[in-house]
């Protein structure tokens, strides 16, 4: 039951701890430098935990703040919107159109971001420390918490946060499965009206699997396949998860009025702030789980 995901979280924690042990062993001789590897396998050595942090990924912003180190953030990307306090920080665009000047002028000790080679190269060439932490899967959440905990010098807090995340996720998943009583609803998660769906490998797909839903998409189509709409009609899902703007228009799509979920109005939409917790592999994942679970329990027969 959701075992692979929690196992990979655990594996990530063990890996991070090993890094920590190395760091402490190395530091036993004198001041303890923290040696960490980012997700691009670059080695980084921090003499002190960074005091000024730039975060260009909402999930990383949230992780720093959940580790109670929000005060170290000096600049964030425009999509970082939680916790509310980050609204006051200067915004440096997004990963596609990053505001380099804004970042440089904030004089960060480290820049946290997802996979964005062009941005990384530009920022490194300006002498900044760039730390890449991919945030795409379930396992990435635990790894990022551990790595950031080590970097910020709060490893115990990170460990506690990880345990807390894992426990709440497991609790929600178990409760949902129990209440679904073996009935696994067939679900279609639409990420874009082109239409693109969320496959089992995507973060949303992993979450759906853990709360006991069946995805209409097979894994071999990749994380976010662009679908022939006919595929969804044939799969005839019990529940559709979609953005609020598109929900009312599903019935207008050719042939979609025959889909069970559309016929019975088993369509879940989420307000933007809730949707963030579902699509962001970050520390608030348990809230996303709760929202998904509520949806499935409300909609399932």
């Amino acid at each position, binding site marked *: 039951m959701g075992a692979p995901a929690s196992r990979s979280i655990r594996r990530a924690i063990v890996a991070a701890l090993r890094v920590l042990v190395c760091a402490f062993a190395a530091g036993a001789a004198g001041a303890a430098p923290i040696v960490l590897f980012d997700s691009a396998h670059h080695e980084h050595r921090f003499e002190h935990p960074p005091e000024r942090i730039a975060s260009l990924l909402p999930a990383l912003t949230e992780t720093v703040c959940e580790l109670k180190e929000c005060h170290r953030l000096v600049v964030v990307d425009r999509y970082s919107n939680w916790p509310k306090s980050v609204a006051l920080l200067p915004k440096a665009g997004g990963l596609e159109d990053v505001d380099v000047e804004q970042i440089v002028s904030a004089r960060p000790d480290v820049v946290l971001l997802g996979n964005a080679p062009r941005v990384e190269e530009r920022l490194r060439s300006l002498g900044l420390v760039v730390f890449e932490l991919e945030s795409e899967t379930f396992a990435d959440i635990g790894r990022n918490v551990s790595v950031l905990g080590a970097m910020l010098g709060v490893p115990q807090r990170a460990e506690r946060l990880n345990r807390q995340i894992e426990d709440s996720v497991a609790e929600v998943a178990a409760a949902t499965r129990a209440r679904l009583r073996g009935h696994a609803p067939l679900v279609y998660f639409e990420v874009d009206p082109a239409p693109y769906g969320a496959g089992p490998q995507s973060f949303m797909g992993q979450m759906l699997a853990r709360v006991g839903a069946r995805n209409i998409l097979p894994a071999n189509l990749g994380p976010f396949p662009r679908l022939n709409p006919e595929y969804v009609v044939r799969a005839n899902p019990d529940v559709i998860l979609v953005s609020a703007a*598109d929900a009312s228009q599903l019935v207008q799509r*050719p042939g979609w009025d*025959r889909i069970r979920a559309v016929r019975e109005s088993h369509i879940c939409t989420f307000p933007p702030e809730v949707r963030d917790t579902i699509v962001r592999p970050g520390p608030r994942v348990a809230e996303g789980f709760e929202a998904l679970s509520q949806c499935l329990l409300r909609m399932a027969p």
Partner: protein
Amino acid sequence: MTRLVVAQALGPERAVRDPGRFKRWVLIYVGAAVLLAAVSLVVGTSSLRTSLAWLMSPDVLSNAVLWDIRLPRTLGAWSAGALLGLAGAIAQSVFRNPLADPYLLGSATGAALGVTVSLLATDASLAGFAWLGQLGLTGAAFVGASAGVALTLALSRGALQTPSLLLAGVVVAFLLGAFTSLLLLSSPETWRTMQSFMLGSTSFLGWRAVVLLTAILAVSLPPSGLLSRGLDALTLGEDTALSLGIPLGALRLALLGLLSLTTAAAVSQVGVVGFVGLVAPHLVRESAHVNSRQLVIAAPLCGGALLQAADILSRCIIRPSELPVGVVTACLGGTYLVLLLWRKARRE
């Protein structure tokens, strides 16, 4: 500049005038459309065997897939392709340039701007509009396309000078494109929707789209046929046409109006699908020596079959996922033009 060089390289039509030949080709295009429509019924996410079984013994699901999804989709693709073919024929005749296409005068970028504005205003997506929305979207695309063409005409001070008209068209296309991007920057959600629009998509063509597209095709074909005599005069050169007493300015304005209407209708329903409007009139002229009236009849038939074929390919190449249809037409059209250039080079 490139366009002109390539246009010269493509050379004049080689085929000889032969009325029987034209009729044969019209029959071929119609036959191809019927055949492709039949093929389209059995091509989709299901295997060929399942699709055939559905045809034999229909049920609720197969009825939905065959008659509410695949049939309107292929008919919609045909109508949109026909509109683009017609627009291409008009554009190439008006500009006497075999590389002119329906998007030349800023009509496509104008239509895209219209669609973007209406999406931003209604906070909706393209996929499923009700009747009013469907008409509204086409209307917005038409207003955008007309505004684009009008701006081009204003910049070139009328429709008389071909080079300045083309230049103005390029400038307007860039300007409107930049403005669209600027608007989209403020709304990341709409940006993604527009991305599939700019790549072209036949995914959600339903009966409403078919009715709308065929209605506009039916409305624009007769005047195009009537104006084709003027087009014939135009092919002799602007001075000759003027000396024949053709009201060149009025003729061009009417033709450009038709060009915006047909382009806008197609773009509002299938997005910016490239190459069909460029290649369809070409194929027609390659296969038979046609006059303008015949071109106006045959190019839509050819364009329709082309987009139908591209739609079928887009659904089956990476089944059950699908490719944006604009990507398929660009590959097919690009390959065709490369072949044409290569053949020309070898002949020399």
